[in-house]
């Protein structure tokens, strides 16, 4: 049986990773991820986790080290945030092209400039096309569960792709929350040993990450795209397996009161919990409001999203990042393109909000609903607005 306990979420993530029989971790500390790095290194130094903890000099080196280690067949872990993730950027598509099942926690934080250490999603969005499986969590329990689940998805023989788990910085990483920590026996039962698709070993020499010119490059890109798309089925299977074992059921797209909803909001990450309170208050006023929480960002769950939003009259997509000079928020542009060919689809609105850690209380979510419902001439649909920005 798991144990009910209270702990800071970042430390709990390190504890959960420590249960996963990792062989190595290479983590460079950066706010607000640092407590994952510090606590995991404590666990290794105290002999509680039997793994190699590589104290690298940068995030570029951290990702390089886990790529190398994973290539030898070691279960490898890293974690980062914001500028650290940006510094890793050039290595992310290499890890996925080499089909190395690395897992990484990202304590989401705004990207400079100006320098800001607080939470938004501007760090993960530029990594969108790196070929990684990308999962968002809403609370501490989910952060713990996904930290364990990620290894099983990544290492599945039909997947063999790296996974990142997005945990809102401070809003989640620095909260002390009550949760259930699975026991070592339970994790051992859930997570089989890592069987790599190939290893770097002198007894059977192979080349990983070889050069490829135009005669092979397009085929390699297609194979990578297919691999990532196909991983969706495994993500569902592993979520179901987790649900059966631990009683906490996860879906690619979570819904709250959407069945009869006329206006639906879509969130990713920790804002979902606040938005959920807004839905309850709106329902109490007789407004048919609903909430969709997108858990799986890549591979994008097209069918699952369509199924839950197609019957709504209006959809409010919320984004915690902006594609400057582009169509609005990255989630918005994804949802719009997903719904383009549908004959039955809601009017789609977009709010860019909570940037650089700007607080978004329940009343703000209610305000977004009210503004969208009041837009009877549909003038605000198909475009975006910054929420709560001083004019």
């Amino acid at each position, binding site marked *: 049986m798991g144990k009910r306990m209270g702990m800071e979420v970042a430390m709990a993530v390190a504890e959960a990773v420590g249960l996963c029989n990792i062989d190595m971790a290479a983590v460079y500390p950066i706010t607000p991820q640092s407590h994952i790095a510090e606590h995991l290194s404590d666990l290794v130094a105290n002999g509680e986790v039997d793994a190699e903890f590589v104290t690298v000099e940068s995030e570029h080196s951290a990702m390089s080290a886990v790529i190398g280690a994973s290539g030898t067949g070691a279960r490898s872990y890293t974690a980062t945030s914001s500028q650290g993730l940006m510094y890793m950027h050039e290595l992310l598509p290499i890890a996925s092209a080499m089909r190395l099942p690395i897992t990484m926690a990202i304590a989401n934080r705004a990207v400079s400039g100006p320098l800001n250490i607080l939470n938004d999603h501007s760090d993960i969005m530029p990594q969108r096309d790196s070929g990684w499986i990308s999962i968002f969590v809403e609370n501490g329990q989910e952060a713990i569960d996904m930290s364990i689940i990620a290894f099983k998805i990544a290492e599945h023989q039909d997947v*063999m792709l790296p996974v990142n788990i997005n945990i809102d910085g401070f809003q989640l990483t620095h909260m002390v929350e009550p949760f259930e920590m699975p026991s070592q026996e339970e994790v051992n039962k859930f997570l089989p040993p890592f069987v790599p698709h190939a290893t770097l070993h002198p007894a059977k020499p192979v*080349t990983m990450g070889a050069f490829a010119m135009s005669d092979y490059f397009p085929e390699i890109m297609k194979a990578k795209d297919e691999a990532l798309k196909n991983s969706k089925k495994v993500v569902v299977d592993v979520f179901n397996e987790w649900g059966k074992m631990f009683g906490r059921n996860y879906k690619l797209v979570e819904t709250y009161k959407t069945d009869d909803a006329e206006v639906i909001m879509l969130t990713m990450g920790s804002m979902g919990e606040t938005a959920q309170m807004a839905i309850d208050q709106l329902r109490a006023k007789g407004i048919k409001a609903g909430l969709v929480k997108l858990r799986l960002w890549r591979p994008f769950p097209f069918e699952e999203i369509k199924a839950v939003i197609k019957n709504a009259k209006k959809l409010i997509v919320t984004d915690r990042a902006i594609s400057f000079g582009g169509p609005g928020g990255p989630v918005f542009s994804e949802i719009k393109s997903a719904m383009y060919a549908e004959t039955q689809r809601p009017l789609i609105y977009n709010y860019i909000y909570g940037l650089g850690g700007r607080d978004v209380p329940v009343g703000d979510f209610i305000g977004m609903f009210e503004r969208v419902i009041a837009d009877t001439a549909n003038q605000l649909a198909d475009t975006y607005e910054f929420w709560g920005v001083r004019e």
Partner: protein
Amino acid sequence: MALKTWKELPIGCVVSEPGSASEYHTGSWRSQRPVWDNQKCIKCGICYVFCPEGCVQQMEDGFFQADMDYCKGCGICAHECWPRAIKMIEEG
């Protein structure tokens, strides 16, 4: 050799045959070729040392030649050859 389809690629494009890079003939990139003037060559081997492709070989008579399957025509041998025994000649 027929090129593989995307479905036939090994996972992660792992190359499991050691030394198979030798099947890739980089000589096809060449637009100029090095030609040795053995009247000027003093057999110092600096061309052999500097060739980034490792394709300059010493023959039995002690003079040097490049393996044209792999010589990219970069001209480093000619640049480094201090007795000026190597000239880069345009490929026809």
